[in-house]
């Protein structure tokens, strides 16, 4: 009997020693919060995480900018795109939710960096300044998109969960003031980049002073601060860091062209593939949306020149309501064309042209028409000759269609220029002025008591 007791006790002791192994296994693919950012070597992975969050919101930005407007026609089965294509957008739309989630994910990671980086000892000052500037830029950029997509949005400046769960909307003006503050702070500390830099991939992948100026040029354009918009666009163009590609088709079919100012990159192993918001999947694979007939007319006109290559035609697709055209700007991983360009140099010429036209400077070497014709020349399209201010402004609007189709600009452009009602009512009988803003996602209204009853008008 005593032997039995001895064995029992021995067994129990063995059991205790194996306890830790059985009950506290470690995850192999996850890092716990406390270990993420506490030594200098941790800064780089979290910095990449910030950029990854930026990439996460890129596709929804394109969808918001182009699918909400008159570029597309629904041709698939996903209801999110049916709603966007037929202008019956609801607060339950998945893209509406995805963009919102992406924006605040970016803001969260940026805030996490801003809160925790100062606590990490031993980080070189240059790194600290640069990464802080990147975090502020990314937060500013997310808020900029948010303010122009949803109107008044919650202003999130910390990672505090409880506060952010009940945060209410802040006026668009306040948000935009914070965007400018973030951009200006970023501009001070972002790295310089020299004229004639050949490091095309790095210059487009990571932020620098010039790319920050480009974002600020867009900011001032949206703010109708024509002088500042012109000034910043000019300094980007004159920086010599980014150069227009000779052939427009490279913009359509290649990643990392010389004119990419901010481009979020995928490679073979992280290609979005068949995910719901994978642009290649939507535009080429499933053809959930196809170019609308009127966009096809514009892009195939002589005025568009080689920019017609933004879309291609295949007669095999021509049946029913399908016009046979397919958007080509987003290719697959193996075609090395799966990146999303958020800002590129051509937009700077268009910003400057618009600013100059608004300032009444149509002609001459520093006039709007000259800038437009830079792009026309590259596209092997006929030069613009008109000099009347109103016509030049319309020419800018059209040129933005030719040049920037499916790069996420159209809807934002039409709304900021006040042309949206005229253009969209002609495009779709379902158009309604409420679509000048996207709805706040339904789940946010439901989960956040401070947003209850605060939906955008009309939704």
């Amino acid at each position, binding site marked *: 009997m005593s032997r039995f007791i001895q064995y029992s006790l021995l067994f129990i002791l063995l059991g205790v020693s194996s306890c830790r192994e059985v009950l506290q296994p470690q995850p192999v693919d996850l890092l716990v919060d406390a270990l993420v950012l506490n030594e200098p070597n941790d800064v780089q992975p979290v910095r990449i995480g910030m950029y990854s969050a930026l990439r996460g919101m890129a596709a929804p930005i394109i969808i918001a900018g182009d699918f909400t407007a008159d570029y597309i026609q629904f041709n698939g089965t996903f209801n999110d795109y049916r709603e966007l294509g*037929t202008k019956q957008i609801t607060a339950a739309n998945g893209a509406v939710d995805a963009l919102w989630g992406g924006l605040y994910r970016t803001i969260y990671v940026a805030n996490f960096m801003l809160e925790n980086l100062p606590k990490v000892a031993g980080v070189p000052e240059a790194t600290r300044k640069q990464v802080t500037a990147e975090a502020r830029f990314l937060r500013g950029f997310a808020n900029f998109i948010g303010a122009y997509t949803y109107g008044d949005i919650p202003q999130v400046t910390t990672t505090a969960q409880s506060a952010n769960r009940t945060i209410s909307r802040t006026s668009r003006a306040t948000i935009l003031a914070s965007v400018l503050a973030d951009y200006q702070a970023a501009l001070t500390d972002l790295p310089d980049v020299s004229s004639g830099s050949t490091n095309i991939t790095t210059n487009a992948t990571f932020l620098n002073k010039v790319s920050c100026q480009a974002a600020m040029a867009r900011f001032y354009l949206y703010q109708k601060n024509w002088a500042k918009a012109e000034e910043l666009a000019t300094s980007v163009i004159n920086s010599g860091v980014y150069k227009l590609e000779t052939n427009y088709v490279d913009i359509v079919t290649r990643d990392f062209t010389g004119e990419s100012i901010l481009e979020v990159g995928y490679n073979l192993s992280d290609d979005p593939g068949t995910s719901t918001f994978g642009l290649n999947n939507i535009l080429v*694979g499933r053809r959930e949306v196809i170019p609308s007939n009127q966009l096809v007319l514009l892009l195939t006109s002589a005025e568009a020149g080689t920019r017609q290559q933004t879309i291609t035609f295949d007669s095999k697709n021509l049946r029913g309501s399908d016009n046979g055209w397919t958007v080509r700007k987003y290719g697959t991983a193996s075609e090395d064309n799966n990146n999303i360009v958020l800002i590129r140099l051509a937009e700077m010429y268009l910003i400057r042209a618009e600013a100059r036209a608004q300032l009444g400077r149509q002609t001459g070497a520093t006039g709007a028409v000259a800038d437009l014709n830079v792009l026309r020349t590259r596209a092997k399209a006929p030069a613009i000759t008109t000099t009347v201010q109103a016509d030049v402004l319309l020419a800018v609007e059209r040129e933005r269609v030719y040049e920037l189709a499916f790069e996420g600009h159209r809807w934002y452009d039409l709304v900021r220029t006040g042309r949206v009602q005229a253009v969209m009512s002609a495009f779709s009988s379902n158009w309604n002025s409420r679509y000048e803003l996207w709805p706040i996602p339904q789940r946010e209204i439901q989960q956040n008591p401070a947003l209850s009853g605060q939906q955008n008008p009309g939704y």
Partner: protein
Amino acid sequence: MRNHYSTVILGVLFMLLSVQLIAQGIRISGRVTSAGDGQPLPGVNVLVKGTTNGVSTDANGNYRLTVPDGSASLLLTYIGIVTQEIAIGNRTVINVQMVEAINELSQVVVTGYNTTQRKDITGSIASVSPEKFKNIPVTSFDQALQGQAAGVQVTQSSGTPGGGINVRVRGSTSISASNRPLFVVDGVPVEDGQLTNREFGGQQDNALALFNPSDIESIDVLKDASAKAIYGSRAANGVVLITTKKGRSNQKTTFSADVQRGMIDMVRRPNLLNATELLDLQREAVTNAGQDPDKLGLIKGVTDGINTDWVKATTRRAIYQQYQLSAQGGNEKTQFYLSGNYRDEEGVQLNNEFGRYTGQFKFDHKATSQLSFGTNITLSRAKNKRVKGDNFLDGVYSGAVKSLPYYSPYDEFGRLYGPKDANYAGFPNFNPVGQALLPRFESYTAKLLAGLYAEYEFIPNLRLRSKVSVDYNNVTEDNFEPSTTAIGGFLTSVGGQGYGDFSNSTYTTLINTNTLTYNFQVASKHHINSMLGFEVLQRQERSGNLQGRLFPSDDFTYITSAGIVDQGSSYRVNSGLISTFGEVRYNYDERYLATLTARFDGSSRFGQSKQFGLFPSGSLAWRISAEPFMKRFTFISDLKLRTSFGFTGNERIGNFQFLGTWASNTYSGSTGVGPAALTNPLLQWERTREANVGLDASFFSGRLTLTVDAYSNLTDKLLFAQPIPQTTGFGSVQGNIGKVSNRGAEVTISTVNIDRGGIRWSTDLNLSRNDNKVVELVSSEPIFRGYTGNGVSNTNVILPGQPLGTFWGLKFLGVDPATGDAIYDDKNGDGRITPDDGQVIGNAQPKLFGGFTNRISWKGIELSGFFQFSYGNRILNFTNQTLLNSGADLQSNQSRKALERWRKEGDISSVPKYVYQSTYNNFLSSRFVEDGSYVRLKNVSLGYNLPKQWITRYKLSNVRIYASGTNLWTLTRYSGPDPEVSTLDGSTTAQGIDFFTFPQVKTVVAGLSVNF
């Protein structure tokens, strides 16, 4: 931890002390067996007459007893068995055979780590004997439970062979954690649910399909806290205990050979339009939208020139076959069972097949009077040729139902049309015949379930049993889609030029169980059975996969030839459970019974402060029929009232959910980390408080037996990924929030209606009702689940006051006779129909379900009919949002119900006007919710045992031929092909959705069974 082990030590000491109570004298021993079949009888009371000195026999029917001298006599008593009195004389070994009465009271019931007899049970346990499903060609034992046990709801998700099956014991307790019961085979908690990684639309594989139901000796379903608490933190959803067959002692070796062959077809085909009808409809829709149908290529006489029945083109009459050979036997010391089985079931969908080889071996040996040991081994290998379905556009049946009849599967040269062919409908239509025939989707699954045990009896009735077991599962998925398929060729973002993926996963559970049992008697009337156990379980999941694209041609189908191998992963996850458990059963004079059970579990799935939990239960039973005042009611054979109360848990939420984590992510070729989950160190078990009251009655010597149970269970601390505003940077956080209640009642009645003149007619009926309700949630805001809805948030909702599986949508009020447009309830009264007008539009939980079986036998002929039914459940016919789409698009065929659509002013119809590209009339609404009640003749079978005189000269002991039909007849009002359906296999919150789900199949089987 310290507490935990002191419990063990105290328990051991307690048992050792009690040994001292045994008296001294002449030791006699023996074995009590049944006169009927020679089986040992455990639990028989052996008493020295006129004294209080006595014991009960152990699980093998053995007893040892010390008597004062040889002049005494033994009194053997047992419920439902004729009492015997035996003089001892000068014998020291007294073996006794006892005659059983006709009832189930002496049936041995497995209670987890122990066994007992039906009569001694104080909890609620349903037993299903394999006799009940021997004629039904079931793939897996979970399927065999359908309609056989009260309180156990079994739903097959589709008619796909080897496919998913939903088992719910007394309702669903959880929102996010698993709702499947714990399946324990020969003492090992085995893998359940799906093993494969790749999605195939709604339909998954079923790990339990790796077991051969013919090797099963008994299935016991533990239903109330008293029965389940011994499984503690995993017991809340019920426990299904499977015991495989074993040899019997003193049985000459017998062989049995079985052959089954049959045919399979769909229960019912969908009702679809032909080409001409569809064209008229589409032209009308386009015209209603103010457009010219000719311009969209909808031209009469041209477009409808071809009329293909796609469902017919993608299905076949399939073949089912099964062969089994088994041997069993044994002597006093050694018993064995050995079997081999091959089963193959073709799917009705082309190229779909589930084939399985299984082997089973069980061996028990008694080395000395004290030491015994043995092993059980289950080996299994399955090959599953799968097809895509349900929500997959490139599915076979799902593609066939949707496909426009205007196109053919083959061109004029007999070649299959590919997705990019100009003469074939483009996206979203893929040639479903090609999607069935061209890809290779093969899953190979291998299972080894093996255990070794040794048992040592220190003193009579004090036994230590230790068992080490492994459940090893390996699944290899070998898939290739050529460039002529949707993924392989059409979707360039995935394949482009062939797409192959290969994955290998292993799921291994290692478990060591140690139990110490001691049964003793104090005076003659106090019987005590006690058990104490310690168990360590470790599970490991390892998985790796690889994907390749750009194959040189479709002749190369393995990734070794792929041009790009760009996707792959590997990972490992460990989890573990360390538990101490115990049980004490007390029985006074067979009249008053009590059971106390508890388990103390530590789980790796929770943070350190919340890792351990105690799950106690207690039950009482009163055998009224044993009271002296009941003696005059001779028609009552047995009457027992029982009640139980206790707590059980649910820990099945996946691993590491309590940690706040960051995971790897990428950006332009760099790798970094991004936030993955918010932390909640206080995350803990779901806890279910269960109360049960039951009555077991048996009348007229067992001719009528009745079991009634009523229960009320409340689960709180629900494990729940609480949705939070994304302004936090996250979509949800894991928490323990909310309560779900299940209340219900169950009735089981078995009768022998006629038993004379060689005719025996018996009837079994079971009825169950379960009311499931979400009692409390984090807020009263709806939480959405299921598919994204059209015009509302989602198909399903979780709302306080509503059951799980509640459908959400707009309330459809009818079709406006003036305009033909749908009228929806403007719930918030804002004058517009928006997602805010969404409301509850039904739920998938049945009000009543059960089974009804009749068996008639006469002179070797057996006829049985088994009906199974479900009443009051709703089905969301989500298929009809495509097949009755009011013109939202022109890409799919339509249901024949579309012929009833509104066409002109004044038409009264429930089908709105068809308007091309209008989504309004096709919003997700109660229009798509249907009554899913059904009664089904699940099985009818006719068997004939050849007369002995014909077969004995061939040295055969029994020959049986039979024919059996499954799902031959169904009564339902559901308009889809079949009401037994759930596209989201295994889902609780979004159950009962029909979304191009392949319907159930009917099977006609002929079989031959030979014993020799």
